[in-house]
């Protein structure tokens, strides 16, 4: 879930909240203890305080034993300890329940109600999104690209009432990268004309874009337009060096001539690096550009791995 929010007095925030579940074995753990498990949960939670140029992140792990973490469909709930995504009302919007997202660390806390404004987007081929040439390098992948979001953010003890729009991705897979791939740059952009654009560029070991890179445009009415790699021209316009000296892109020009799109994308805060067990940069970005000859702006999230 990656989102952009602002307060009534125009303070701007971004957040990301991801729960990963990994099954360590295909066989069920035969143990009889309440703690017995073969499922590991990991969660990442970040808040970007754009107005103050600050980034908060945290990582958590747990097993699903002793009900410390888990997922259930009936009365929808996914949780890792007290970080959770939970169905709130008996009400659905476009097949998705209205949900409450809650997470907190010592410094940052979020508590939002999310309601989808658009139908589900099945990515790739009817939801099967191929990421590499080898078998298994694919995911089932769907998105809700625009969810109305209301709630509060508490940062270092200060509470802010916020509203805005969230984006939810859900994927499951065996593996994500093939041997010749190094990582990905993933764009989830919400434009002011109520269209959304998703584009991921799989990066090969030599840094060049992989043929399996692709994207989608979600129009205002929910209709979809696929984007192929060949249609896209993505140029890095700026870089940022992490404290450890790793160079990350920090500005892009994303052009899709076939769709009349020319966007300049820049990080809202340059350091949005998650220094967790697997390091990656994922953060809020600002968008300025031209679509169909008209000026357009927007906000989004970019995720970069494998640097």
């Amino acid at each position, binding site marked *: 879930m990656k989102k952009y929010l602002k307060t009534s007095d125009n303070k701007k925030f971004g957040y990301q909240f991801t729960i990963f579940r990994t099954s360590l*074995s295909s066989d069920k753990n035969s143990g009889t203890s*309440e703690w017995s498990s073969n499922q*590991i949960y990991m969660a990442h939670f970040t808040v970007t305080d754009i107005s103050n140029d600050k980034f908060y992140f945290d990582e958590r792990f747990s*097993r699903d034993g*002793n009900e410390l973490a888990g997922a259930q469909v009936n009365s929808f709930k996914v949780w890792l300890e*007290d970080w959770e995504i939970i169905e709130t009302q008996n009400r659905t919007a476009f097949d998705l329940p209205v949900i409450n997202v809650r997470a907190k660390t010592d410094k940052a806390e979020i508590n939002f109600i999310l309601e989808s404004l658009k139908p589900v987007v099945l990515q790739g081929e009817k939801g099967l999104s191929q990421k590499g040439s080898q078998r298994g390098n694919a995911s089932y992948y769907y998105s809700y690209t625009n969810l109305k979001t209301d709630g509060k953010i508490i940062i270092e003890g200060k509470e802010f009432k916020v509203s805005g729009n969230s984006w939810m991705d859900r994927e499951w897979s065996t593996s994500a990268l093939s041997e010749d791939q190094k990582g990905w740059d993933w764009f989830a952009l919400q434009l002011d004309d109520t269209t959304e654009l998703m584009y991921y560029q799989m990066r090969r070991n030599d840094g060049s874009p992989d043929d399996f890179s692709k994207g989608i445009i979600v129009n205002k009415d929910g209709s979809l337009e696929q984007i192929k790699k060949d249609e896209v021209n993505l140029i890095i316009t700026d870089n940022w060096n992490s404290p450890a000296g790793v160079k990350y892109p920090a500005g892009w020009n994303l052009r899709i001539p076939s769709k009349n799109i020319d966007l300049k994308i820049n990080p809202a805060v340059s350091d949005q690096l998650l220094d967790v067990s697997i390091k990656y940069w994922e953060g809020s970005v600002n968008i300025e550009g031209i679509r169909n000859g008209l000026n357009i702006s927007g906000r989004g999230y970019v995720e970069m791995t494998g640097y």
Partner: protein
Amino acid sequence: MNSLTKSSLRYLFKHPWQFGLSVLGIAMGVAIVVSIDIANFSSSRAFNLSLDAVAGKATHQIIGNSDGIPDSFYRSLRIDNGIKNIAPVIESYVSIPDSGRRVFKLLGVDLFAERPFRDYLSETGSSIDGVFKDLFTKPNSIILSEDNLKKLNRTIGDSILVQINGKEKFLVISGFIKEDENNRSALENLFITDIASAQQLTEKKDHIDYIDVIIKNESEEKMLVDLLPDGFVLQQSGLRSQTAEQMLDAFNINLTSLSLLALIVGLFLIYNTMTFSVIQRRVLIGTLRSIGVTSGEISGLILKEALIIGILGTIAGFAAAYFISKFLLTIVSQTINDLYYVVSVREIYISPAIIIKGIALGVIATLLSALKPAKEASGVHPRSAMIRSEQESSLLKKIPRMTFAGMLFIIAGAVTLIIPSKNVWLSYFGILPVIIGFALLTPVVIILVEKIFSPLYKKLFGITGKMSSRSILQNISRTYISIAALALAVAATVGVGTMVSSFRSTVIDWLETRLNADVFISAPSLISRRNDAVLNEDILDKIKAIDEVRDFNFYREVELLQEGKRYHLLASGLSKRSYSGFKFKEGDPDEAWKRFEDGEIFLSEPFAYRYDLNVGSMLTLKTDNGMRDFKVAGIYYDYASDQGLITIQYEHFKKFWNAKGFSGISVFVKDENSIGTVKDKIQSLETGGQQLIVRTYKFLRDSSVEIFDRTFLIAKVLQILSVIVAFIGILSSLMSLQLERKRELGILRANGLLPSQLFLMVNLQTLLMGFTAGLIALPLGNILAAILIYIINKRSFGWTMQFDILPGILAEAMILALVAAVLAGIYPGYKMSRTSPVNALREE
């Protein structure tokens, strides 16, 4: 180096025997004291290290009820209350039958919660494939140190058959951790497993043992305490090792007391050695003084010598201590495992305090004991120093004063000892004057013995006999120290021997009254004297159903950790026929039993002593529903545990505690002949994998006595070691004494004494000295035994013991004194008889 120092060194080298024996005497004294210190220190350090290793960085632990902490409570702390720095722990012990019953601690943890707590796990915790994956997904997987993997001769993927709570289970090795300097001691006896496996292995259904916590400040602590239900406590991590240490306190003190006894013997020998080396050289010193050497230079010289001997002795003593302590350590850790807790001690740890103590003993004590002889030697007029008879007659003149002073010392010691106090050190402090008193009484005893034996010797051995007995008196300044030292060494063995045998017979009497059932059933336990394993409750029903069973007792033992103390509570379901097994120290038995049935408690004597409780006192115990006061109905004699026990009736116990299962069951049979049948029937019960230890009365009694003997093995060893020290000391002083008489004996030879007569004379003399020493040792030994029994053991453990004087021990002591003396006389006697009078008489 000036010529004086040279002359002193030359003296030492010219008398290698005497020099060597002095060094050896000091070395042995130092070795015994240091090695006991090392054994004590190493065992408690090994235990603390293993506790620290398990506690990791936790500042506190949440301790639950008698059955632990429910999983749900941990979950609610983490999820509902958002408390993050907590980690669930299940801790148990497993023994490996096919590896010499080696014991490992099984530590069950949740690797996801572990990272802030235990460093050595972080490596494993960060990778989700390989080792970690198996540990997590395959039940009963463990990881262990690489070192242990090799020692157990296993590889990854192998399984190990272990016994845990009396049941056999298989563990599978899923990986190992490489040791480094930081984690070595932590991993030494550790199997790490997932909390799920641990829960399954220990059969702690839905419960964990405790929760590790890292608390940063008081407000966090307060918040956490407010969340704890009744009966739960938050205690500091250090408290766990503290209570363990308290447990060992009395045991350590008793060991130390034995080493102190050895120390006193050692000190005496050092004093003996130094005095000798001065007395022997009175003539030389007189010569030096008469050619202008000042008295200050003389005492400086003697002190310098003492320093050399002291340093060499200390170095040798530390070297010997290293080897002796390795040996003692196996005995000490066996005893600790029998009585207190599971610990494996393989490293030897030495603290600066031990080194300082050893040096203080070896060097400083040697210097101090040389002070008096040095002062004497330097203070004497040069001319009289050269006259031998001077020193003897001056001592003879002093005897009445010495005797009087000896009496005063003994009285002072007695007064110190009867001061009412729980302080054990005060009692040791009281022993010293008693011993010094006896030493001061030695000359007067020598005179008496000589008076009695001189005619007898003359009658039996003629002039040779007369001469040998007279010369003890003539050389009294030397002989009395040797005799006193021998007497003290022998007395120490009598004291310790009598104490142990008195204690032993007290315990056997007690066992015979207390173990009044026929067959005893328990689960295999890793601590011999305690039942930490638990029997399933349904076993009792199955036993009841056996035809030949007439009646039964059962009990459940739980440990209560409260306010930094560790109480052992015994919940007894006693048949009335077992009531007679309890002998009360306080409280009317009928009344006491009536109140016991109403829910009041009994205390064992050591417990009541330790916490100053009497009949009618209130004791607050941590029940599973919070703290509760219990009234004491009686105090009974009990030797099962030096920690003391609280006994409560089982029915009442169940009202306040949830603990399930039994620690032990005992059975009365209808007919004595059916004991074997009952035993077999119980052994063949269907128990669902639970192993039962079924013992008959006789077997249990014998094995209890065996544990007792094992416990006191260390006392025996120390006794033997102190005899060796004493023997070396006696040997050295008697030998010097005789060797020094070279001239005198040479004159006798020149006057026609045959070599065989001379040999006889020397040996008759040492024999009489040994006899005198034995004569002094017997009363002194019994006094030491009485002090050990009535004062030191009472103060350390609170036990009342009967005093048993065993004629065997007394006879042994006398024989010991005589044999030591005779052995010490053989070599000098032989040597002197072989020396030609010409050589013996030749002046240097």
